[in-house]
């Protein structure tokens, strides 16, 4: 194995791969990154058996070959030890030799015999989605996924392939975020996903990795419990989570009776400041609507209290008093890309719905966020 390639690209690829390689495992080979030179290209692979990543890059190849290198060492070396321009590698019996500028480095390598084989994609039906939209839809939902493993299906992002839209949702049962991408033209092959696949749940870690590496158009393929994301020489493979996702449409507020329309920043300010005085353990702040006037407040027996009147809000509907956890509200509001937001209330026991004033357009996913109120005692 002997080749020369661009330092910049190599660096980037190794950084991505290092994140995917297993941290600790019973199978030590998983901590390695595989380098393979074949057909005038350099293939870089890493996996922790949950997620697999394969990166293809162009290179000037003199001799084909393959080896694996410990990911920690390689990524540390790559991020500090190779200078811009070109880097050349050669596999010898002592290890793999890197030459970059005036440096010469030997990293001990291992053979590829026991390195896992990444699953192969046989399915040809796939969908290509606008990367900005997809990225947004994932970003808007992934933070709501559950961190607790008690209900595995909640630890992932749910995607439903509806007739003319893709519905993304995540919840940890305290709050739920939903983002919808509408199609004007359905992508080819979408019918297969609409009729046969119907819905999938992707582990949230996969989404975190994907968000880091995706830049250009993304092609999604679902095959046998696995999902393949392809984008510009990158291939990210992940298992899917089995299970039935809760039919969350049931808990979406159907007929909210009070609507508050206000500037996002005003509400952020009110919630953030109040949260300082919310009890650390229970973490509660109160939103109260009295006679078309809104007040956000919190009181701590230990430290004091705070109150913000929502002056510039336009409020319709009846009086309300709702207790909620400020952290959940803040998580959701920061995802809204709009100057104004609408908060819809039903009663003190029903979820609070927060949405943007904009409706879904072609380049903007529509976003809804609901938070369960804290039951007042």
């Amino acid at each position: 194995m002997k080749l020369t390639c661009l330092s910049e690209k190599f660096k980037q690829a190794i950084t991505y791969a290092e994140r995917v390689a297993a941290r600790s495992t019973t199978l030590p080979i998983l901590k390695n990154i595989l380098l393979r030179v074949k057909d005038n290209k350099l293939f870089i692979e890493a996996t922790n058996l949950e997620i697999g990543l394969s990166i293809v890059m162009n290179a000037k190849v003199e001799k084909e070959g393959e080896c694996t290198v410990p990911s920690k060492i390689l990524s540390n070396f790559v991020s500090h030890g190779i200078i811009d321009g070109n880097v050349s590698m050669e596999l010898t019996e002592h290890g793999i030799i890197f030459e970059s500028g005036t440096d010469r480095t030997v990293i001990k390598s291992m053979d590829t015999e026991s390195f896992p084989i990444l699953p192969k994609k046989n399915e040809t039906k796939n969908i290509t989605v606008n990367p900005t939209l997809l990225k947004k839809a994932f970003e808007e939902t992934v933070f709501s996924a559950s961190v607790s493993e008690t209900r595995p299906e909640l630890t992932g992002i749910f995607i439903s392939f509806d007739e003319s839209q893709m519905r993304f949702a995540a919840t940890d049962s305290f709050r739920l975020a939903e983002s919808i991408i509408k199609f004007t033209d359905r992508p080819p092959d979408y019918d297969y996903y609409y009729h046969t696949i119907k819905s999938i749940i992707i582990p949230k870690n996969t989404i975190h990795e994907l968000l880091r590496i995706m830049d250009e158009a993304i092609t999604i393929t679902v095959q046998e419990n696995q999902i393949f994301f392809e984008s510009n020489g990158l291939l990210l493979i992940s298992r899917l989570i089995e299970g039935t996702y809760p039919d969350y449409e049931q808990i979406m507020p159907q007929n909210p009776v009070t609507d508050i329309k206000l500037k996002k920043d005003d509400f952020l300010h009110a919630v953030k400041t109040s949260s300082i005085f919310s009890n650390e353990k229970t973490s509660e702040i109160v939103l109260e609507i009295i006679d078309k006037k809104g007040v956000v407040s919190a009181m701590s027996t230990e430290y004091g209290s705070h109150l913000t009147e929502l002056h510039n809000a336009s409020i319709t509907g009846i009086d309300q008093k709702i207790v909620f956890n400020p952290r959940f509200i803040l998580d959701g509001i920061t995802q809204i890309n709009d100057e104004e937001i609408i908060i819809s209330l039903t009663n003190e026991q029903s979820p609070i719905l927060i949405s943007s004033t904009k409706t879904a357009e072609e380049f903007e996913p529509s976003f809804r966020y609901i938070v369960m109120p804290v039951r007042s005692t």
Partner: protein
Amino acid sequence: MNNIELWQSTLGQIELSISKANFGTWFKNTTILSIDEKEHVVIGVPNGFAKEWLENKYHSNILDALRVFRPQVAGLSCAIYTPNATKRSIDGAQIKSPAKSSVLESNEKNITKQPYQQKQHLKSTLNEKYLFSNYIVGENNELAKAACHAVCENLGKIYNPLFIYGGVGLGKTHLLQAMGNAVLEKDSEKHVYYISSEKFTNDLINSIRNHTIDDFKKTYQKIDLLIIDDVQFLSGKEKTQQEFFYIFNSLYQINKQIVISSDRPPKSIATLEERLRSRFEGGMIVDVIKPDLETRVAILHAKARERNFALNDEIVRYIADNIKNNVRELEGALNRVMAICDLSQKKPSIEVVQNALGDIIASGRKRTVQTHDVIDVISAHYDVNNQELLSKGRKREVVKPRQIAMYLLRTELNLSYPGIGEHFGGRDHTTALHAYEKIARTMKDDERLRDEIEVLKEKIYDI
């Protein structure tokens, strides 16, 4: 050999030929999904990585191993499947089979199937050596025994539930088991169920895991006398408490007798749900306290007679004098004396007994406790600080803890009154005397204070 067995045997073969890490990584959660008529085996694997790996790297290993048990196997492939779904159905099958077999076993004469099973249960839980006739009654347990007797005569009609509490080794279990045996002796058709709360919890957990919770509940509804031992272990287990509450209620409503024991009264069991607590308190609560000297002597005599071992009064008196806290220790001491006499072929004499018990008595836990242990426990328990407790201040918050501290120093460490006074900022010995007497007097009437002192003692000896 069915598919599951075939795969288990195959895995056994493969495990020998590859490393443990590889085996664990690649063969976990695998199974045989199907074998078709052409002898092509489909192996279910949990993910794509395992699929690629088994098909490419271990293909021949697996094939060889399979052929050991099923030579006609032609080929194999892998498919991704969800372990959970399949596992559940396997579990289901497993649950059914033992139930079936027990029904078959219970196929016996005049008794119907269900009660027979019940009796089987109870035989294993009741120990026949515990009887009312060999229970020594003293002032300490008179009331408890009378209550138990009365309950046995009138199941479910008086004192329901009966709650018995007392420290370790004072005979609660003996009483409970004796009740069960007495009831059965009178009427062997009755369903008596003796269970420790620990086992109750385990059974509940198992039934939840095996999805047999309904059966679990049904078993309990057929019981005439339910005896739950050491109920304090339910403390903190919410789900168990909840299930127990339902069972309790359903039995209670149809006037079935419930008997409960614990090492402390219901209100001292921390994190016991309020509704359970109030139900426990709704019947009769009796306590079993430490036996007095006469009772201890009587117990020793009875135990010695039971085993045909001759002891003179002096020896019995010596043992009873030195071992005060607990009947089980008393029995232990007697056993030791007997063993040593047997082994060394000596006649039991006071010297032999002193030697035999020397280290038991000497290592009695009281000696190891220091003054500051007592002070620390008290100040932690009442949340007052050490200095304040030892100072001259007469704040209300520290007065009672201080008196209790003095009382405990007197009773547990045997300090002199002037010595105690010295500890507490050079007080007069009369102050210490007053404190001791006051606490001792109040304790007689104030059950709460008694509990508190018990709790404190436990804490002190825990150190």
